[in-house]
């Protein structure tokens, strides 16, 4: 079998496996650059567009994230905008089909990771809102993230430019078009994680503070802060959680699973550093069977070693007196 054939087979098997893993997840057509959205009504007049539980690829076009939109009395509220301009534009079209004739009143960005905000371009910038710290993160790191997305997603990214949210939020709640939203300013997945609750339906949009059946990602994580953010969300009134990645969650399982994984990840990396293992050796740590249910856990664990190891080395390796 020649190489090209093998690559083709591997890719098509990959797509098939992903398609089988999640019945409600959308896909993407890499030939036509059309995202194949599946909008699920997770609560009254509240739609989640579930991405695949995968890493960015040319096949999925970056459709690996959950975004959502809510019909409120006078318009529509959107939570996160996806990985590309194209995604944002197609999302806007989908919203128009589900909720015809109503204006977009507010677009929230939960944090500055590229799969969550690079679709902002499709929306009116003055309506895009986030805490100041999320805005700062998008301003300082957005372009580098967009460059990396061009590298990973190629044509899917055509025309995408960073659009910084036009409105900084600091209130504990705001009313949008006749609906009250509670706003939570947390951190841990990144230095600024913004959580939104629709006070009418009780849906909590957790962003990437919660993952479900998809391994958490840690490129900007502070594990201690993340744990305490999860503690906060645990005791926050809600009826349903829409995690940043994975199915919607009526029982708080996403919080428990994310916390369990972070505890294991932190403990395992601390042990590896204390034994003097290289990062490559740490990457070979067996992953406990209970995390096998988390998609892409092998890849994310390897990435997390790179993200978190050096900080732990500075914390755990004993300091040595030198003479110069």
């Amino acid at each position, binding site marked *: 079998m020649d190489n090209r054939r093998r690559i083709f087979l591997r890719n098509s098997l990959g797509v098939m496996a992903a398609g089988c893993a999640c019945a409600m997840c959308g896909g993407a057509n890499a030939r036509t650059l059309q995202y194949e959205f599946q909008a699920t009504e997770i609560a009254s007049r509240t739609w989640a567009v579930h991405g695949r539980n995968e890493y960015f690829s040319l096949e999925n076009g970056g459709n690996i994230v959950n975004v959502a939109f809510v019909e409120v009395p006078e318009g529509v509220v959107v939570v996160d905008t996806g990985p590309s301009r194209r995604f944002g534009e197609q999302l806007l079209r989908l919203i128009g089909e589900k909720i015809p004739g109503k204006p977009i009143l507010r677009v929230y960005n939960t944090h500055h990771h590229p799969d969550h905000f690079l679709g902002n371009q499709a929306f009116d910038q003055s309506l895009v809102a986030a805490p100041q710290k999320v805005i700062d993160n998008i301003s300082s790191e957005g372009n580098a993230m967009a*460059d*990396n997305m061009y*590298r990973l997603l190629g044509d899917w990214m055509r025309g995408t430019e960073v659009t910084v949210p036009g409105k900084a939020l600091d209130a504990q709640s705001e009313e949008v078009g006749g609906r009250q939203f509670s706003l939570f300013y947390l951190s841990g997945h990144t230095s600024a994680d913004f959580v939104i609750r629709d006070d009418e339906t009780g849906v909590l949009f957790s962003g990437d503070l919660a993952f479900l059946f998809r391994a958490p990602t840690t*490129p900007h994580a502070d594990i201690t802060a993340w744990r305490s953010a999860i503690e906060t969300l645990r005791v926050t009134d809600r009826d349903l959680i829409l995690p940043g990645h994975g199915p919607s969650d009526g029982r708080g399982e996403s919080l428990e699973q994310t916390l369990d994984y972070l505890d294991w990840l932190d403990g395992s990396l601390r042990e590896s550093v*204390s*034994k*003097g*293992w*290289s*990062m*490559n*050796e740490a*990457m070979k740590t067996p992953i406990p069977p209970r995390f096998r249910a988390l998609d892409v856990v092998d890849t994310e664990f*390897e*990435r997390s*070693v*790179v*993200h978190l190891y*050096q900080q732990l*080395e*500075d914390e755990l*390796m*004993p*300091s*040595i*007196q*030198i*003479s*110069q």
Partner: protein
Amino acid sequence: MSDSTQRTRVVFSPEGIGRLALGWLVLSVMLLSAANAATDVERELPDDPLDSVMWESMANRFFPGGDIVFDQRVIVDAPLSAEDQFFLPVTVDATALETNGLHVEEIVAVADLNPIPHILTLRPLEADAFIGFRVKLQQTTPIHVGVKTSDGIWHVNGVEVDAAGGGCTAPAMAHGISNWMETLGQTRAIVRRESALSTRLSLRMRHPMDTGLADGIPVFYMNEMQVKLADGTALADIELYEPVSENPTLTLKPRVSSNQSALDVRARDTEGNEYVFELPVPDLVVGN
């Protein structure tokens, strides 16, 4: 691409080479022979399984002299994709080559497409043929590791690593911190005894490892390290080069018998700063 200053002459295996190319090779080999007749060692350069465009140049510059074989017993462990182009972790384990009285003399690691390819050279004098390190990558590149055994043969293996750009030409993180000079050379280390004869040494030193390729920042890197016993017996010599990541973090396995209780480490950088320290070796904890 071909290296005109090469000391060794290259003779390709004839499979797959057309007559014309072969004729050209014979001609160039003759010219080279005339130039270098006295020092020449003939060897066949095997095809590179990674298909690197720089393979011939890498082999001639960094794995000179002896015959070259690609050998799976040289384990080069690195992620296939660099999560962070400033810190690609690599661990090389060539201990499987040390059979039948052979020992490893040198381990040489190169990143073919880096502007400065040579990453480091380890001479494991009294140490296992093992090293963990981190490297900056300028772009997607093959990484080749050549391991020279005492019979003069280079055993080579490698990996191709996908990376975003710019690892070598961006300023070190240290330059974003105003007092970085004060922390220069700060050292952290762990020494563990893994058996009656062997220890594991993990070492982390603050150093910007400036390549000289970032705008306005002159070259400045840690370039030498020696690990010895307290009685002066040399265990491992390491030459480090510009691509080694900021705050070099190395994992080594020096052989230390149970009657020895300390390692002496001496490191130097390109400004002539010396960093000298002693590391106690703990007793073997049974059942650990």
